[in-house]
């Protein structure tokens, strides 16, 4: 079974693709059937993924299958699958979350007119994401990379009748273009420099390559992809807006899976980044800055999904930072645990939004805890996990990142990470206390969500609790024994663990004081730090800066180009056209409209050609060929 799953890993993306095709072509008119078929397919993929994981745990080796896609002289492109511990873990996470989210969607998307379409998109996304994960080369990965971008666009704009959804979808797509362009350039560079895009081959070649300057450029170009897709500063602006999509989509795509594709790409191409320490440093600082930057914004936001979105950005920053400081294991571990609890948070938020009929402002909620016990409990578990409280999942992975930062000499980043842990605990429990334990809003009549929605929550809550235990440094074969770069390590530091736990608890306590006990007035603090608060509340005015840039600089350049086009390019074209026109006036006298005249010219031309050919070689001429046997 496990061997079958590993050898036929192409089936994993194929099953959702089948679902997509079936729904699009046959099941459009049958919403329930399409949902069930989609879930059945993703479940099959999940079973296969379990097989893959089982195989990896038994024998952590790399299995690669590839076929030639097409080959030309000089370029040979292949398609294939690459199963190693990293992709095995990713396949497991993606299929699991996708399965749970799809089950959850049965309840959440109930009565939506685009039910079938929604599941078709979900299947397409699952196909693309899984295809991305199992790719064995950059080009195939890029294809699926673009496909997940497309799915993201489709799902953000799923409620396209809403203006904001359309705008958000466009924003996500366009912002991603910037990063993807860099990524594509990087791929082209790799193909030109090394003649192959296969990960395994490149991993062999790159360490021997000596032109570090060029390689740095390539690495940074490739890193542009993750900047866009994983929402790193400065291309993070699309992710909060992407919350316009249905909440399960946010959970699956914009929290647990698609956005970590960038992190996965860095991990996959880690050999490339390790070869150029400068690039690694850039990655580390970009990640660290994003983590801090997003966390500070999250403190001031009021929309439940936006808080979670900034939290996602912050956690993605963590993962990227971990990679930057060389902690591949830590990053991947955090990726996995984060997928569990962040998906849980989003699904919980979705449950709340569902119950409150699309209300998203946390200040309009309040007092949900008694009405929605399951949602509240699972949400709190997830929040604790995210805050990094012992022994929940986030604790282990966050500690590992901090350890990696400190042990690799990035003390500054370690401090930032610790501070971000504090901020994380603070904004998460601000959310929890306000939304679930605040003053009940008399307008609301919340009710617990149906089973089909709560069961995925419970499953994810269990995973959020125990998911981190696989990475306990005391285990003999823990997470790091499978996923590492170079060699496995089992280090831990009690001081870091204690610090981070204390810091998180401090954040929770501060939130408790400010928003539950109200002993510290949040308004007063906001008033006192008015400029900073406004800066944070308006997300550092990044969107406005981009808008100004586009309005002034891009439009100004556009106006110049317009003038050039109008007077220079059009002038040349019109001049040519006029010349042609006047030429045509002269030449048209040759066109009599009499077919016979044309025929005569034709025959005359034949006669002339025959005579000329006869003259060129008068001895035998063209007439010698008639004797062919």
């Amino acid at each position, binding site marked *: 079974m496990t061997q079958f799953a590993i050898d036929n890993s192409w089936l994993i993306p194929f099953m959702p693709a089948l679902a997509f095709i079936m729904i699009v072509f046959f099941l459009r008119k049958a919403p329930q059937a399409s949902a069930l078929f989609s879930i059945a397919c993703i479940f099959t993929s999940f079973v296969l993924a379990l097989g893959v994981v089982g195989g990896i745990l038994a024998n952590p080796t790399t299995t690669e299958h590839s076929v030639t896609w097409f080959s030309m002289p000089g370029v040979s492109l292949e398609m294939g699958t690459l199963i190693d511990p990293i992709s095995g873990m990713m396949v497991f996470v993606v299929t699991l979350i996708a399965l749970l989210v799809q089950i959850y969607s049965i309840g959440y998307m109930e009565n939506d007119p685009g039910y079938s379409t929604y599941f078709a998109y979900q299947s397409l996304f699952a196909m693309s994401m899984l295809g991305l994960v199992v790719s064995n080369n950059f080009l195939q990965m890029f294809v699926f990379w673009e496909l997940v971008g497309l799915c993201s666009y489709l799902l953000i704009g799923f409620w396209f009748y809403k203006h904001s959804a359309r705008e958000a979808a466009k924003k996500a797509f366009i912002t991603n273009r910037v990063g993807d362009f860099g990524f594509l350039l990087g791929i082209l560079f790799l193909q030109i420099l090394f003649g192959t895009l296969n990960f395994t081959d490149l991993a062999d070649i790159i360490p021997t390559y000596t032109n570090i300057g060029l390689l740095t450029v390539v690495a940074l170009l490739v890193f542009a992809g993750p900047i866009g897709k994983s929402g790193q500063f400065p291309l993070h602006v699309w992710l909060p807006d992407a919350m316009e999509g249905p909440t399960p989509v946010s959970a699956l795509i914009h929290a647990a899976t698609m956005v970590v594709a960038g992190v996965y790409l860095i991990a996959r191409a880690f050999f490339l980044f390790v070869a150029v320490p400068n690039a690694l440093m850039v990655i580390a600082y970009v990640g660290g800055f994003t983590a801090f930057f997003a966390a500070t914004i999250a403190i001031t936001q009021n929309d439940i999904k936006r808080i979670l979105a900034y939290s996602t950005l912050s956690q993605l920053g963590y993962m990227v930072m971990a990679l930057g400081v060389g902690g591949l294991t830590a990053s991947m571990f955090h990726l996995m645990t984060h997928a569990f609890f962040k998906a849980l948070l989003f699904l919980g938020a979705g449950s709340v939004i569902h119950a409150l009929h699309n209300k998203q402002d946390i200040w309009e909620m309040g007092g949900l805890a008694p009405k929605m016990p399951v949602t509240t409990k699972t949400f709190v578990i997830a929040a604790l996990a995210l805050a990094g409280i012992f022994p929940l999942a986030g604790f282990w992975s966050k500690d590992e990142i901090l350890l990696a930062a400190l042990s690799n000499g990035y003390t500054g980043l370690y401090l930032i990470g610790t501070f971000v842990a504090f901020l994380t605990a603070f904004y998460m429990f601000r959310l929890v206390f306000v939304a679930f334990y605040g003053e009940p809003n008399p307008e609301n009549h919340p009710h617990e969500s149906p089973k089909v929605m709560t069961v995925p929550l419970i499953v994810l809550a269990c995973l959020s609790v125990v998911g981190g235990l696989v990475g306990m440094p005391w285990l003999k074969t823990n997470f790091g024994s499978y996923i590492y770069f170079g060699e496995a390590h089992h280090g831990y530091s009690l001081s870091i663990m204690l610090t981070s736990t204390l810091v998180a608890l401090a954040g929770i306590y501060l939130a408790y004081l400010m928003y539950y006990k109200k002993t510290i007035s949040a308004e007063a603090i906001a008033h006192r730090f008015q400029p900073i608060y406004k800066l944070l509340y308006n997300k550092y005015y990044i969107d406005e800066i981009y808008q100004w840039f586009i309005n002034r600089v891009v439009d100004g350049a556009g106006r110049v180009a317009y003038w050039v086009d109008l007077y220079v390019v059009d002038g040349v074209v019109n001049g040519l056209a006029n010349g042609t026109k006047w030429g045509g006036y002269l030449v048209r006298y040759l066109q009599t409209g009499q077919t016979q005249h044309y025929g005569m010219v034709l*025959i005359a031309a034949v006669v002339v050609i025959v005579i000329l050919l006869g003259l060129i070689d008068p001895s035998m001429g063209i*007439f*010698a060929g008639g004797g062919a046997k």
Partner: protein
Amino acid sequence: MSVSTIVFWIIAAVVLGSAISVVTAQNLVHAALFMVLTFFGVSGLYVLLEADFLAVVQILIYVGAIAVLIVFGVMLTQRKGMEETNVSSSHKWVTGILVTILMVGFAYAVTRTPWQVSDHAAPESTVGLIGELMLTRFVIPFEIVGILLLVAVLGAIILTKGARRLP
């Protein structure tokens, strides 16, 4: 002078004479009838060339169908008398010179070329061989010709009857 040689010269005279009459006859119907005579002569040439099947096909299709169609066309498009219906254009002298030069070129080419003539005898019956070739080696052209004929016939019907406009 064997019999076949005499027959060849007679047929050649008939073919060329009637072909020239096609061009020179003032009455278009006469021209068309001379054309029929030309077709007959060509059919005779096929008999001389031991292509009996082709000779019969020539008569069946050219005389029995194509010539009839053309005469029909003549009759449907002439309203007044038939005198002076087959006149040449104003550029007939240029055309004549051009065609003469082309003929000289042809003659030069034909006489200068050392043809590799085979001395094998022609097969007794060609029908079976033709059928076999058409359905084996030339089956694709055969099918294409069939489709072409179908398309041509449909096109001709639509052209003359006028296509019915869809509501």
